[in-house]
């Protein structure tokens, strides 16, 4: 156990040195490291709990996605049957399906054939899964039921998440924050982590808005109040104003131009009133549509609708042909700016709900770092003193091994660009405990072997070989616990699992190589007559 071949010694020392080297950039100023090649720019990332920031978990509103899919399906059924001139009654959305009854005397075979065109295989031709988006069943009395399949809904939710991630990225980048993290979580969730944010209120406002902007005509044939009390025409709907007193508007359901046709939106000021406004520009097709509508409707009001709320309803004074316009509507500078950001980034395909939020202010983060440092230093100092008091020279060897062990943990954390959290620091402190334990196991075993009457070198050799088996066994069990923690944990808990897991690996490594190497060289150098522990 005490004999090392030359190449093994070199390999051990090189590994230790290389791993420790990776920890080095953490102690240098960021500017210096920035000029290095990319592969060397590895460092430990401070968790949100240490540097401050917001962790926000969003969920796509599956119900809203399904509702929209059902409404689209219903419209498709109507279109298909009308195109084929097939009479029907009672076209309704019921539960997870659309039901339609074909009139008596109609060609039901043709109707079924037409409806069947709505049922498409999922995932296109290339990745055919055998699932279809719609199941069609026919029942007595010419009733047809078109049911959305679960895979179809799942697929749409998945797409909605993908699109939302891109849109959220554009929105968050406008905030000018450093290194925001935006990623998918599970099938219908998005995790947004923004470090170093003092107040997440604005971020949450930017995330939570669908930002679906549409232009509609206002129906002025009857006053909105009257429509509210009596009968709302089938092609209209009542929408309310977004700000100020809640004013109802009777708005045509038909969309004139949608926000998807916008190419740009910028905050600005109205030259006459010097109120904050949002200036926008349409793309070519949007501009053409907008020009046509405004030409035909001079003198009539139209409504600018954002997320089903009327921002403003100006009267068209003259045709707008240039494809650009202005939204005014009691904005502040901030809200005009935010609306411009939202319009530039585009509308979310489905509403997102915040289901978890964790924000740590920069003050608490700095305090946590300070506390983490103090407790690590104090803990390490006490352990080092105790080990020296208990084992003397061998305690010193153990302390060197443990110090290198901690440096290696930082090296591996840097290599992985891992996140260090406050529980992560606790994990390192506990690793020091485990690392010391491996040395204690070895030394106690050596002492036992000495008492059993072995010669010093024999005892040291036997102590190592017997203790190492135990170290392996006991550390693997702890490693299993750390692995499970990593697998199930989120955020801070995962940070703890990472440092604990890495710490166990480096501990076993140093116990098997470095501690043994140090003791082996000492034995060769001193040829001890008795073991000094």
């Amino acid at each position, binding site marked *: 156990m005490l004999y090392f071949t030359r190449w093994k010694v070199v390999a051990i020392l090189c590994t230790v040195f290389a791993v420790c080297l990776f920890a080095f950039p953490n102690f240098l100023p960021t500017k210096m490291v920035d000029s290095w090649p990319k592969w060397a720019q590895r460092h430990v990332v401070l968790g949100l709990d240490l540097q401050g920031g917001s962790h926000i978990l969003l969920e796509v509103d599956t119900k809203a996605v399904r509702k929209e899919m059902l409404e689209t399906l219903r419209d498709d059924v109507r279109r298909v049957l009308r195109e084929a001139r097939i009479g029907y009654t009672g076209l309704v959305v019921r539960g997870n399906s659309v039901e339609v009854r074909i009139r008596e005397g109609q060609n039901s075979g043709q109707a079924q054939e037409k409806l069947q065109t709505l049922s498409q295989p999922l995932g296109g031709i290339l990745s055919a899964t055998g699932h279809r988006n719609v199941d069609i069943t026919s029942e007595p009395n010419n009733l047809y039921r078109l049911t959305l399949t679960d895979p179809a809904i799942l697929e749409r939710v998945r797409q909605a998440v993908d699109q939302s991630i891109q849109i959220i990225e554009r929105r968050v980048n406008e905030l000018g924050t450093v290194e925001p993290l935006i990623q998918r979580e599970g099938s219908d969730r998005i995790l947004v982590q923004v470090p170093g944010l003092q107040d997440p209120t604005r971020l949450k406002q930017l995330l939570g808005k669908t930002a679906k902007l549409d232009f509609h005509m206002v129906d002025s044939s009857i006053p909105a109040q009257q429509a509210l009390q009596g009968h709302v025409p089938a092609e209209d709907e009542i929408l309310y104003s977004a700000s100020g007193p809640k004013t109802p508007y009777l708005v045509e359901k038909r969309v004139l131009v949608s926000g998807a046709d916008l190419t740009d939106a910028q905050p600005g000021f109205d030259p006459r009133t010097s109120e904050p406004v949002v200036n926008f520009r349409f793309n070519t097709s949007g501009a053409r549509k907008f020009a046509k509508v405004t030409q035909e409707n001079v003198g009539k009001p139209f409504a600018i609708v954002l997320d089903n709320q009327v921002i403003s309803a100006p009267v068209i004074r003259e045709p707008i042909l240039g494809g650009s316009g202005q939204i005014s509507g009691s904005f502040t500078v901030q809200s005009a700016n935010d609306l411009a950001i939202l319009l530039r980034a585009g509308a979310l395909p489905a509403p997102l709900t915040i289901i978890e939020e964790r924000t740590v202010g920069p003050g608490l983060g700095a305090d946590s770092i300070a506390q983490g440092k103090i407790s690590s230093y104090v803990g390490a100092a006490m352990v080092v003193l105790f080990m020296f008091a208990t084992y003397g020279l061998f305690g010193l060897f153990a302390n060197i091994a443990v110090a290198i062990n901690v440096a290696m943990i930082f090296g591996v954390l840097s290599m992985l660009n891992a996140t260090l959290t406050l529980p992560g620091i606790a994990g390192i402190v506990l690793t020091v405990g485990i690392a010391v334990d491996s040395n204690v196991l070895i030394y106690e075993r050596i002492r036992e072997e000495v008492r059993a009457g072995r010669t010093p070198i024999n005892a040291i050799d036997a102590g190592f070989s017997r203790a190492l088996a135990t170290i392996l066994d*006991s550390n693997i*069990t702890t490693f299993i616990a750390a692995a499970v923690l990593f697998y199930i944990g989120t955020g801070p808990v995962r940070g703890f699992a990472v440092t604990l897991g890495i710490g166990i690996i480096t501990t076993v490594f140093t116990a098997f190589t470095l501690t043994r190497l140090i003791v082996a060289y000492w034995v060769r150098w001193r040829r001890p007559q008795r073991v000094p522990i």
Partner: protein
Amino acid sequence: MRLLRIVPDDTKFDFMRFRRISFPISAMMSILAISLYFFHGLNFGIDFKGGTLIEIQTKAGPADLATMRASLSALGLGEVQLQQFGAPNDVLIRVAEQPGGDAAQQLAVNKVRGALGSDIEYRRVEVVGPRVSGELLSYGIIGLMLAILGILIYLWFRFEWQFALGAMIANVHDLVLTIGFMSLTRIDFDLTSIAALLTILGYSLNDTVVIYDRIREMLRRYKRMTMADLLNISVNATLSRSIITHVTVTLALLALLLFGGQAIHSFTATMMFGVVLVGTYTSIFIAAPILIYLGVGTGRDQPSRSESDRP
């Protein structure tokens, strides 16, 4: 230099004799802990219960809890708890989960922010919606179970099944007592507590495995020794290591407990109880002697008993 010797060499404590005391005590403590869990309950934090947790620091002088309590309870948000947290100007506010889904939680936070005014630094805001809290709890429980199962399987491969079972009984005993401790002290039971439980599990096993390793070695070496003697020798042989290791872990934990701050206070307190108090006791007084009951080396007692029967 004279070296520190906490445990003298060649101790010969008869630990196995204590099993007639330690087993009933452990059984009673476990029953107590379980009934604490059922009748006193755990103080679930927002991770598992849902709701809002806000840590604030008043900028001007100590916080006036009474005024804050009055203005917050006027919001009609149900149960609102205020608690001083460390320094006199640090306050922890807990708002119970609001009915009406995830959006309602966000609304409650905005209301609290409005009521507290601007002369305040928000150090931490955590909002956990009803669905996430349910998932976190089930993940936590599944995680604990998986860890126990994984370790059991590993020990079964490395040792005989009696050892795996013994280690599991010993460690479930540790977890049960720790949960009782958490119930008694009303420590917030959250994700960090699950981390603490898993770490206690890891440490406690670490200790158990070290003793079991030695027992296995002794079983091979001394074929004729009675089981009780063999266990005593094994525990005594590893005693010095057990104590020294626990002292170092205690020192490390003590540093975390004293200087680690409020955020990990409950974590370290739980670890202190589970690893230092219970873990050490368990590996010596439960994990080792239980092997006798599980029938490790049953064949051994026969010849030795007949030996002792001799005049």
